[in-house]
């Protein structure tokens, strides 16, 4: 007969394996990011490099989201873990669309694209998770003041791009939608910004926001090589988010 203790031990063991794998993916993502930016200076053909980088992004995002889904099965915060995994999964879907498009059509994607739906929905899932986390903090501990309005400054980026770099209405709508999603995610994360428990998770979220801002600026300013700016940082951002959430939960377990 299998005892309850054996079941929980097995659960803890699989949780540990998933946690270590996520850590491994995170370390690999750091190495890949470093290698990618070295390769840019190696003067490799842009098309080849971007094709390879997109393949790596797709593969890593897929592994990360699968890890997230497996983790949700043994997590105490099942729905939050599932939301994180779904966030990574929708990013994977967007990337799959992107990769398929450049492979099948043999050209860069027009901007904006349907893949942006996949990328932006990652923020929606993350906002859901952040709201759930902050709802657990007692109201009297949340001290928001005027200086906490800084995320709204991000809206200056699409505003500047709309005024001086692009006339396209759909591109501007896309840029503002991304900026609003970023602002909303960072605004909702204010109460946990100083929490060391969520440090890695928030680092991942911030990196994802920076990548998307870089992408939107480069897409308007250097359209011929816009993907190069943040291509290698996305796997790092996603692995930081997933690993960071696991780490935060591990700190509760202890």
């Amino acid at each position: 007969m299998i005892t309850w203790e054996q079941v929980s031990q097995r659960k803890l063991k699989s949780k540990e394996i998933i946690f270590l794998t996520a850590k491994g993916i995170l370390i690999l993502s750091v190495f890949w990011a470093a290698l990618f930016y070295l390769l840019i200076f190696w003067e490799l053909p842009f098309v080849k490099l971007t094709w390879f980088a997109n393949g790596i992004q797709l593969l890593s995002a897929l592994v990360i989201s699968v890890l997230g889904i497996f983790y949700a099965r043994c997590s105490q915060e099942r729905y939050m873990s599932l939301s994180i995994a779904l966030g990574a999964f929708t990013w994977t879907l967007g990337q799959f669309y992107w990769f398929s498009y450049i492979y099948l059509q043999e050209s860069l994607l027009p901007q904006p694209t349907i893949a942006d739906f996949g990328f932006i929905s990652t923020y929606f899932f993350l906002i859901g998770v952040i709201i759930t986390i902050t709802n657990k903090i007692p109201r009297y501990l949340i001290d928001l003041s005027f200086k906490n309005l800084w995320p709204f400054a991000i809206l200056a980026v699409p505003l500047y791009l709309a005024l001086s770099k692009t006339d396209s209405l759909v591109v501007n709508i896309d840029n503002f939608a991304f900026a609003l999603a970023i602002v909303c995610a960072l605004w909702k994360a204010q109460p946990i910004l100083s929490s060391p428990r969520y440090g890695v998770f928030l680092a991942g979220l911030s990196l994802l926001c920076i990548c998307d801002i870089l992408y939107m600026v480069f897409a308007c300013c250097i359209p011929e090589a816009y993907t190069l700016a943040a291509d290698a940082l996305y796997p790092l951002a996603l692995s930081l988010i997933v690993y960071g959430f696991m780490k935060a939960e591990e700190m509760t377990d202890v």
Partner: protein
Amino acid sequence: MYEAIFVGTFVPLLFLAFVLKGENRLLILFFIWGLVAFVLSLRINNALIASFPLGMEKLSINMAPIVEEFAKALPLYFFIGLSKEKKFPLVSFGVAVGIGFSILENYIYLFQHFNDSGSPVSFILTRCFTTCLIHATTTGIIGAGIVLVKRIKGIVWPIHFGLFAVAVTIHSLYNLYVFSSYNQIGLYMPVVLFIIGVALYKKLSNKKDEEI
């Protein structure tokens, strides 16, 4: 022609909905909404083609999924505001909308290929296992999402937007592959997704504490 098919299907089904009660009536009403959603989407897609220099392929890949998924999911949004105590099989309702939508779409495609040589049965069978399933799966995903997020307070809209985006991306991916030289991937994708979806649905339904 499609108006005649729409009215010819819509009105008898309304009679049926009138006779039925409770969840059965709702299921038929959702199915009927699928037909309405198709007509709405067709009108909007035609207007988009007329207004922008888009070909059929570009429209199917880049714009139609947004319009179609939004039109199909519209009645499901109503259930977000309802209290947590009232439980509805929203996944089945979502699937019913998708199936209703694709049946009317099948008729249109069948009439467009009416004069082609060869039997139309294989053509329509292919559509049944591909387009029907992709429409059913994507709206089912949104229905499942609403059931899921109703249990978690305060995050209904962010997660709902997320799931809508998932549905649109999957639909666009399907269209992208179907129009490409790798259309075999596009043809198998709906079947695989549907089987995974049904397996997950059954698994969650069997759990005592789940009301999906």
